[in-house]
Each structure stands twice: as C-alpha cells, then as structure tokens.
C-alpha cells in the first residue's frame, strides 16, 4: 500500500515520526549554530567604527550598525551565543536540583519530604529578584554569578510540580506492587518515577530558559551581571531602548527577533522530544 502510494507521488513525503526527528535536528542545529557562531564570525564587528554610525540594515551590515558604528549582526550573534549558554547552564542546573529534590521528597516522604517542602516554602517567601541580586552580588557578579544565582532561585516551582507528580505515582497500584516485588525506593524512583516526570522536566526546562536569559539581562542592566561592554542580548536590548524613539528600529527589533527565534527553537525542540518520549505518541 505504501509503495503504490509512493509511486504515484514521487515527491518526498515524511511520516509523523520523520517530521518529529527532522524538527529536532533542525532546532538543535540552529541552537548549536548560534552557540558557536561567535567562533566563525570573529571579533572585528565588535570594534567601534565611527564613520559607519547608525546605518540601517544593508548587505554589508545585515542587522545595521549602532551609534558607535558596531555591526549589530556580529554583536547579536555574540550576545545570543553567550545568552544561550548562560540560559542553558542556569536552566539545566535548576532543573537538576528541582528534579532531584522533587523525586526525593515524593519517594522517601516523611521527614525528608517535610524538610524539602520547608526549603521550597522558604525560597518562595523571598522576593525572587532580591534573592537573585543578593546571590549574584555575593558571588561578585559576572557570568558565574548570574548562572549560580539563576540556578539557585528557579528550581523551586519545578521541584513542587515534580514532588506532586511523584506522590501521585507513588500511590498507584503499580508502584505499590513494585514495593511488594522487593524493589528499593531508589530503583522505583529511577524506573517508575523518572520516566513519568521527564515531560514535566522538559516543559520546566523550556520555561526556565527564557527566564534565565531575561534575568541575566536584568542583572546586567543594574550592573552586577555581565560587564556592559560584553555583547549580551540583554545589554543590547537595554541599549536599544534609547534608540527606538529616534527611529533606529533595527538596533532593537532585529536582535529581539533573533532572541524570539532562539526561544521558539528551544520550545519546538522540547515539544518534539516530549512527543518522542511519550508512549502515547512515540509509535505513531
């Protein structure tokens, strides 16, 4: 049946699984390209060239130039590369902490659960941005400061979701049966709970990623994040605020679009990986 179908229409047709795999490959390629783009592009566009100030997008400068004559495409790619790395690291650490603690609380229960829930509540009761600023400041700012601050403050909501999910799975017949089969809590956490929380983990990671980028931008904006001459996307966007009203739209819009594309690529990546993992859709 499939062969006759192909013979009639020789154009390349993909089934759903192939589309999923292709989406994953393309999004991964795009993000990897952004992360390594600064290596290929070099640093020349970052130097001020006062003769070429405020030029609109052209073939020589695809994203235009800013008020110091710096090439916006080069700056944007450098900035995205840094931001994607910072965002991934911070969101990744956050997700690991959240998953670990959530699984522990849900599986071991009792006192462990009480202590972890208490820590989560403490973090929730502190204003988010204040805690970020304090941790970042205590670590002396800079890239590491931002990564550690975002990682330490963003795991709580994910941990709560994963704890709730784990508690629900823990009371199910098949997990109770697994205990009666003599399986240890760690084995059960690894084999029964983890496959269950991976979709939550992916969604959490995807939601954390733009958060991490924006917080990095916020910290840089008030001067304890990255240093102002670093071409981070947050700094570029903050600078562009001044230029929007004067008609230099490309300084803000194009880097913003690039950020949007990167976040969207991450989102699509997460969706498709989840579809691949979920048994209900993985064999379709």
């Amino acid at each position, binding site marked *: 049946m499939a062969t006759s179908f192909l013979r009639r229409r020789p154009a390349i047709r993909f089934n759903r699984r192939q589309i999923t795999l292709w989406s994953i490959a393309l999004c991964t390629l795009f993000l990897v390209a952004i992360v390594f783009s600064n290596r290929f592009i070099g640093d020349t566009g970052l130097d001020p060239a006062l003769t070429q100030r405020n030029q609109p997008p052209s073939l020589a400068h695809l994203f235009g130039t800013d008020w110091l004559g710096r090439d916006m495409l080069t700056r944007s790619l450098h900035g995205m590369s840094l931001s994607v790395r910072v965002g991934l690291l911070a969101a990744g650490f956050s997700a690991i902490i959240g998953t670990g603690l959530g699984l522990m609380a849900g599986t071991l229960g009792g006192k462990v659960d009480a202590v972890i829930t208490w820590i989560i509540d403490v973090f929730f009761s502190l204003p988010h941005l204040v805690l970020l600023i304090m941790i970042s400041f205590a670590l002396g700012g800079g890239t590491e400061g931002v990564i550690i601050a975002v990682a330490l403050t963003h795991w709580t909501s994910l941990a709560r979701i994963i704890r709730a999910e784990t508690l629900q799975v823990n009371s199910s017949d*098949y*997990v*109770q049966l697994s205990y009666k*089969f*003599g399986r240890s809590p760690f084995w059960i956490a690894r084999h029964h709970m983890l496959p269950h929380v991976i979709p939550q983990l992916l969604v959490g990671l995807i939601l954390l990623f733009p958060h991490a980028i924006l917080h990095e931008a916020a910290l840089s904006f008030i001067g304890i994040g990255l240093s102002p001459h670093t071409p981070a996307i947050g700094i570029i966007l903050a600078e562009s605020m001044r230029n929007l009203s004067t008609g230099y739209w490309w300084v803000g819009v194009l880097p913003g679009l690039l950020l949007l594309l990167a976040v969207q690529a991450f989102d699509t990546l997460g969706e498709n990986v989840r579809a691949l993992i979920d*048994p209900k859709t993985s*064999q379709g």
Partner: protein
Amino acid sequence: MLIGKQLAFRYPHHNWIVRNFDIAIAPSEVVGLFGPSGFGKTTLSKLLAGYLTPTQGQVTIDNSPLPDRGYCPVQMVFQNPELAVNPRWRIRKILAEKQPPDRFLLNALSIHPSWLDRYPHELSGGELQRVAVARVLNPATRYLIADEMTAMLDANTQALIWHMVLDYVRSHNIGLLVISHDAALIKRVCNRAINLMQVGTSR
C-alpha cells in the same frame, strides 16, 4: 499456612472497615471470599498481601509475620489491570519486573510475543490482565490473592485466566484467595467460601 488473626482495620478517625476477621489459607487450597460492595473485600485482600497494615491483629505466613523488604510471598492481582502496570513501560519490562517470564507460562496465557514491544495502552483490558497475572506467577509467590481478577473481562478471557491460574496453583502448591461478588464463580472454582454477610465485618 497464611493466617490472618483477629484482623481489624480503619483509617484514623473513621469507622471500622474490617473487624475481628479470621482467615486461614493452606497451600494449594482455593478459598472464596464473597460479599457485596462496601463489606471490606478489597481492604481484606490488601491486609493479607501487606499493602495495608492492620490496625489490630496480624497476618502470618508459617508463623512468621509478612516480610517488610524483599519479595512478598503473598501477591495480589488487581481488578483494573490498566492501573496496575506502568503506562510508560513496554510489556517486556512489565513482565520481567520480578524475573523474566517462563515461555510456557506466556503460551498458557496466550500472551503473544509481538505484545512484548508494545505499551500498555496498545493492549486491551483482558490482554493486560493476562500480562498482570503472568507477572505474579513465579516460583517466589506462595499465596495469591485475586481481587475481582476477572470482573471486568469477557467470558472467554475469564475462562482462559481461571483455567490457567487454577492449573498453576495446583501444580505449584500455591494457596489462592478468590475475592468476588459473583457467587457462581466462587462456587465453581473454590474448595470453600467465606460469606462476609454471615461472618460480619463492620456493619
């Protein structure tokens, strides 16, 4: 002997669900437990299999209490097979959670080899229940509690599962407790039956 002595159970601040209940099941004996809904049939099966700890009384196997850790020699087959298997595991992994299954056992339960790579939602309820039964029929199981094991299934599957389980129980000297509200079924498969209406549990 699997013995439940003066079993009583209630959740904190609630009425008794089960009270002063005695039961003894010998190896290779098939005992029926009969009663209408709400008489604590499932609670009793969970007490005997160690899923719940009795508020009063105790459950012993050959005069020692049920083990806390390791494989429990009293195993239970649940009413809803869909809830008793991890929806994210393939059938192969579900069957092998205790130990990889015997090929003869799979044949006897007509579990087709092509199912092994499927996920639970790709099998029907009757097919899944056969998988759930195959999972607990292993040499370490000495008593089996079938809590409405075939209540949800069609007549053919019911007959297949009961023939197979009764054969296995007899040849492996396993004690079987059949819990059901179907008097005809209990009469057909059991050596003796306990009627909860006459014994009286809580109400």
